[in-house]
């Protein structure tokens, strides 16, 4: 279903809503294209004219400064005009329906919507209703998907490790509520990772998570054993109040990544985190800042990946 919506009749990427169901060739093409966009960042003029004349709207129903900023910077580096709309304080708050908002923006000549929404499936819903010349990119929907985050993570891994087929990747933390983890799992399996492990307490794992093609560990030490990459997930503070966890301190004691624990992984193991990090909750400060940490590198790669996705999707529609 997602693929039918994402790819047009000619097999081109019209929307980018989820990694699920996209072939390995597409994931590699996105990363290859992002690689070529990295040279833009070293130019004196950090801009290419590819999307000149196009208008991109960042439609954020949930606040997220980092993701919105990297999408904005990506669009501007492609020379698009960018509108940032924080929907929580705009028209829909006055009672206007989502579709009315979309149609009004379309009437202003918008070419792309970048959508962040608390409800799973929101980006798909918008993609089903936009005009044929408009592309939709999912910037995170509910617990469902965050495909550009997953792709920038894959891009970071590929930069350091090259061959996915040799990799054991441990994803640690709140898998249950994480759209990032779901997208990462799909991407890693599509790219042929040798083993994907999820490491979490039972309360933070989805039912039948094994069906996603992962090995489940409830013990961090076992989960880290000989891992090539460890991806820590952010723990939302509200999970403490939801009685899913006893306390932050307890979570850190059982599932926090410390330097001592990291020794179980391979010596060249990458430490990743989609950010923003809670120091002393998911990860010890000394690990977040250590030489194996590529957390800040991930942020930089986010711009190149988002440029690639924007260029590939808008290049698939007739201008």
């Amino acid at each position: 279903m997602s693929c039918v919506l994402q790819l047009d009749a000619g097999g081109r990427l019209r929307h980018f809503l989820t990694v699920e169901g996209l072939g390995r060739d597409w994931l590699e093409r996105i990363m290859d294209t992002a690689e070529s966009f990295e040279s833009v960042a070293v130019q004196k003029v950090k801009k290419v004219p590819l999307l000149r004349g196009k208008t991109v709207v960042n439609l954020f129903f949930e606040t997220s400064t980092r993701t919105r900023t990297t999408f904005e910077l990506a669009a501007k580096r492609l020379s698009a005009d960018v509108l940032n709309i924080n929907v929580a304080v705009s028209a829909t708050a006055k009672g206007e329906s989502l579709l009315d908002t979309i149609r009004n923006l379309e009437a202003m000549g918008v070419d792309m919507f970048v959508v962040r929404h608390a409800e799973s499936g929101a980006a798909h819903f918008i993609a089903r209703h936009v005009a044929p010349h408009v592309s939709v990119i999912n910037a995170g929907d509910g617990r469902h998907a965050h495909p550009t985050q997953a792709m920038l993570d894959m891009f970071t891994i590929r930069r350091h490790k090259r061959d996915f087929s040799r990799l054991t990747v441990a994803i640690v933390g709140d898998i249950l509520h994480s759209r990032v983890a779901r997208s990462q799992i799909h991407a890693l399996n599509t790219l042929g990772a040798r083993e994907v492990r999820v490491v979490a307490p039972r309360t933070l794992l989805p039912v039948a998570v094994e069906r996603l093609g992962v090995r489940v560990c409830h013990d961090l030490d076992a989960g880290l054993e000989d891992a090539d990459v460890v991806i820590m997930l952010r723990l939302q503070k509200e999970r403490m109040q939801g009685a899913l966890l006893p306390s932050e301190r307890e979570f850190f004691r059982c599932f926090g990544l410390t330097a001592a624990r990291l020794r179980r992984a391979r010596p060249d193991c990458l430490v990743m985190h989609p950010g923003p990090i809670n120091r002393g909750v998911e990860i010890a400060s000394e690990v977040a800042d250590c030489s194996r940490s590529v957390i800040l590198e991930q942020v930089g790669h986010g711009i190149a990946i988002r440029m690639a996705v924007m260029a590939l999707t808008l290049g698939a529609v007739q201008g």
Partner: protein
Amino acid sequence: MNAEALDIDTLLQNLADCLRRQIETRRLRDPLLVGIHTGGVWIAERLRERLGIETPLGRLNIAFYRDDFSRIGMHPEVRPSQLPSTENRDVILIDDVLYTGRTIRAALNELFDYGRPRQVILGVLIERDGRELPIQPDCVGGRVSLGPDQRIKLTGPDPLKLEIHTVEAP
């Protein structure tokens, strides 16, 4: 010049001779040789040896500067440009075939995004008719006259070969 006369070595020698004269008369200082991906890079690599230029070769991929992106979308194999700052540099820009002039327009735009060059000299292995923009080379290896339904393409990198194809009219 007809297709049979398109000998690569002769064309390269003609182009190198012309560029050498330009380097002298225009008093180029430590010129930066830049090839346009892909054929232009192959030609620039050979010219670098013939001209004795020691500065590393610049590689320009104009895919992000094309004026037909909204019609044809992203090229499937985009390789990143590799170029130092062009600020106040003498640049020798090299391409394999000069046809409509749109590639050179895009390349000049990209060069200026890496800095403001002191001057740019354009050298092409082969020039054909069919210009759509007012762009002319400073040095050419040879000229060929082709019909609107004909295309000339360089294949390589080893050996380099020029081929003429007939295409269907759009």
